[in-house]
């Protein structure tokens, strides 16, 4: 209840959002955890993209490039999984 109120009164409440406690004086790990979460949520990406104006043609190119990369990565992942798989039903596929 109080947390909701606090969130409503302030969209980015300090020391509630994006905060990690340091455990066992391990600052490095805490820092990395923060960075990892920010990276995963796409916050750092958005920050970098909005430093400079991106012209529409650049946006189009970037989005297309990301699409291509995603397709390539997905196929490559499948390929690698296929090569690495064990217990084949057919020991020599395609050679019957």
């Amino acid at each position, binding site marked *: 209840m109080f947390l909701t109120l606090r969130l409503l009164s302030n969209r980015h409440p300090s020391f509630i959002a994006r905060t990690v406690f*340091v455990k066992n004086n391990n*600052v490095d790990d805490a*820092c*990395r955890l923060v960075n990892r979460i*920010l*990276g*995963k949520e796409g916050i750092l990406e958005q*920050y970098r993209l909005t430093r*400079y*104006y991106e012209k529409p043609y650049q946006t189009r190119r970037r989005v297309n490039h990301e699409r291509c990369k995603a397709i390539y990565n997905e196929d490559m992942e499948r390929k690698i999984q296929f090569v690495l798989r064990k217990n084949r039903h057919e020991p020599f596929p395609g050679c019957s």
Partner: protein
Amino acid sequence: MLSTVRNTLRVPVAGVLRLFQTSALQASEKFDHKRIPQEDEGVQGEKVVDLDSVLKIKQNLFPTLDSDNQIFDGILYKQLPICNIRVSHNNTIFTMTDASGTVKIIRSCGMEGFKNTKKGTNIAAQTTAIAIATKAIDRGFKTIRVRVQGLGPGRLAAVKGLQMGGLNIVSITDNTHVSWNPPRPRKARRL
């Protein structure tokens, strides 16, 4: 990984050019800059994937409803002094404030004697952090919470330096201003 991709791209281009003996090498350099995204700027651990394993092992990593009233070193969490760190590409600025936000100490890499490009290095950030930490201990701050803002080479080094200076860091907060519908930013740099 990016550099390897760049090299593989560059080699065939150079080979083709050498056949014709043209002087269009500069054009290919420009092309490379535009196509290949810039390298990472000192945000360690951003690309690591296995988040869940860390979260499973450790408990009480994140603040909850009653973390404000938790006691650290005899002080309530919400009354701990704050160290704000403003990290940018060209400088790192530290401000020590009390819980209400009144500035007590301010130091920057430029004030520490680093000039020009040297201000924006991780070494500068670390030295400045150690300097401000010793000052803070003199003023009686011992246990602090850290609030980091911005990306830059000094991001990790700054927090590390505060700890090396003898301060006890309770929590790390990121306060980078990010907007999903910002006003139009300045025009892109021409490389």
